[in-house]
Every structure is written in structure tokens, then in C-alpha cells.
């Protein structure tokens, strides 16, 4: 029961994260949201997790939940990568503005 509550809290945190991220990267937000919902369902209905796990050849329901967790972690990593790219785009815009302003000032001064 304690593990179920802890996992539920973590998965709710992922749901919140997915909701916040959706406007910036809809694909990651949507996948994380679906994975977290799936995880919540299987945490509270473990018999279905075991049945589905057997169906897809994983063995135990607990393992299935771990796999879902790994999947969520990878999505979070992907999202971090996308955030870094977005930061780089902002840096690029800033660097471009500075570079062009300096070049135009140099030309205006006849350098």
C-alpha cells in the first residue's frame, strides 16, 4: 500500500509536469500524460497489469510498471533536450542581434 501511494504521488507529479509542458512540446506532453495515466491505472489495478504483462511477454505486472517508469524517464530526458534547444534558439537570436548591430555600426562609421 505504501508503494502504491508513493508511486501514485510520483505519477501525479508526472501528470502535472506533462500538463505544464504540453504548450511547449505537445508530443512530449501528450506521451508523458498517457504514460502516467497508464501507470496510475496499473498501480491501482495490478491484476490487469499482470494480465497485460503476460500478454506482451513481460512476465510480471510490477515489471510492466517499471518499464512504464523507464519510458517516462526517457520522455523527460527528451523534453530536457528540447528545452536546451529552445534555450539555444534564444541565445542565437540574441547573438545575431548583437552581431548585426555591431556590423551596421562599423559600416556606418566607415570602418
Amino acid at each position, binding site marked *: 500500500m505504501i508503494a502504491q501511494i508513493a508511486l501514485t504521488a510520483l505519477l501525479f507529479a508526472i501528470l502535472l509536469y506533462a500538463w505544464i509542458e504540453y504548450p511547449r*512540446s505537445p*508530443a512530449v506532453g501528450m506521451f508523458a500524460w498517457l504514460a502516467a495515466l497508464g501507470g496510475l491505472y496499473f498501480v491501482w489495478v495490478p491484476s490487469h497489469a499482470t494480465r497485460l504483462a503476460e500478454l506482451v511477454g513481460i512476465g510480471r505486472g510490477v515489471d510492466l510498471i517499471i518499464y512504464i517508469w523507464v519510458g517516462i524517464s526517457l520522455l523527460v530526458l527528451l523534453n530536457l533536450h*528540447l528545452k536546451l534547444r529552445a534555450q539555444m534558439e534564444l541565445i*542565437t537570436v540574441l*547573438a*545575431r542581434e548583437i*552581431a548585426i548591430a*555591431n*556590423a551596421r555600426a562599423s559600416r556606418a562609421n566607415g570602418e
Partner: protein
Amino acid sequence: MQPIPGRSVWVVIAAYNEATVIAAVIADLKSAGYRVAVVDDGSADATARTAAEAGAAVVRHPINLGQGAGLQTGIEFALLAGADVIVTFDGDGQHRATDIPGLIDALDAQGADFVLGSRFLGASLNQPLSRRLTLKAATWFTRVTTGLRITDTHNGLRAMTRRGASRIRLRQNRMAHASEILHQIADSGLKYVEAPVTIEYSAYSLSKGQTLGDSLMILTDLFARRLQR
């Protein structure tokens, strides 16, 4: 053919650590009468000083951002400088200034906003087989993903009208910009044509060229771009 008097043709070069070759490239372009903008992409060598001494307008990125970022900077600079036609050109000496009139003629004669240089309609000198095969595969991929009927891809020699250049917003800082620009041309709905050009590979240009690993990085960048807003 010399540039048409009264029309402002800017050649944009994104350069990173090209101090050994950039002066000769600029000299060729200047002797043909073109205005040249070199975007020094945070080079560690004397690229910016050499380019300025050779007569180019130099725009310096404070940090290294990548060729795609350099080209977008150069395009924006040329537009602000009043360019009517913008030509993108590599700084490593593999392009020929004598191909530019053909590109501009194609813009005028066919009423296009973009002319894409094609080494497969023209010539590739000293091109390794592995490079040829990689380019063929990349061209096929580009045709499938953009719908453009092109014979070459990732060829940095292109010309565009002011209207065409205004529609380009490169957000891929690195090499994937060459695919991104084709997607943007396709999305713009503006007319594009191809024109034959000659690419002359040298040991120097090959050492700065793309590897198979770069091709995988390009695919990753394009995929990541799709996931972002």
C-alpha cells in the same frame, strides 16, 4: 555576365576558421562585382580580419553557433543592407563565382524566387564515391519529405530574390539548415528552379565536409525540430 547595374546582389558566406582560404574566395567574388557579407561564426583564427581586409562586410557572431545560424544572420544583414538578390556561398573554396550569373539568370528568366545549385546537373570534381552515394540518398529523402523535385541537396550555392529571402527563417543552427531551407522553400509556395553548378572538392573542403555521423545528427535535429512548437 556582370551583376546588373542598379541591382544589389549580395553574396553571403558563413565562415568558421577559414582564414587560410577566405581571402581568395572573397577576391574572386569582389572581382566579379558582387557585394560580399562574411559571417564569422566565432572563429578562433583570423577569419574576420582577413575577410575585412579582402573587402567583405564582416558580421561577427560573439560565439560559435553553426553554419545555419551564420547563413540566417547573413541573409538578415543583406536584407537590411538593401539586397535585391542574395546568393549563399561556401567559404571553403569549393564553389565558383563564375556560377553565380547562371543562378541570377535563372531567377530572372524563369520568374523564380529561389534557384538551387545542382552539382548533379553540373559537375562535381574530385567527389569521393561515398560522398556521392550519401548525397544521392539524402536527395531521395528530401524529395520524399518536401515534395520538391530536386536533383541535389545540401548544396550551399543558391540564389534568392529579396521576397524569397524574406520567407526564410532558419532555426536549425547546424548542418540540418540545408534540409530546413528546402522545407521552407516548399512551404513558401514560391517558385524554385535548379541550375547547374560545379563543386570542386579539395582536401581542405573534404576535411571540413560532412561525415556519416553528421548525417545522423542532421536527422536527429530535424526530428527534434518536429517535436518543438
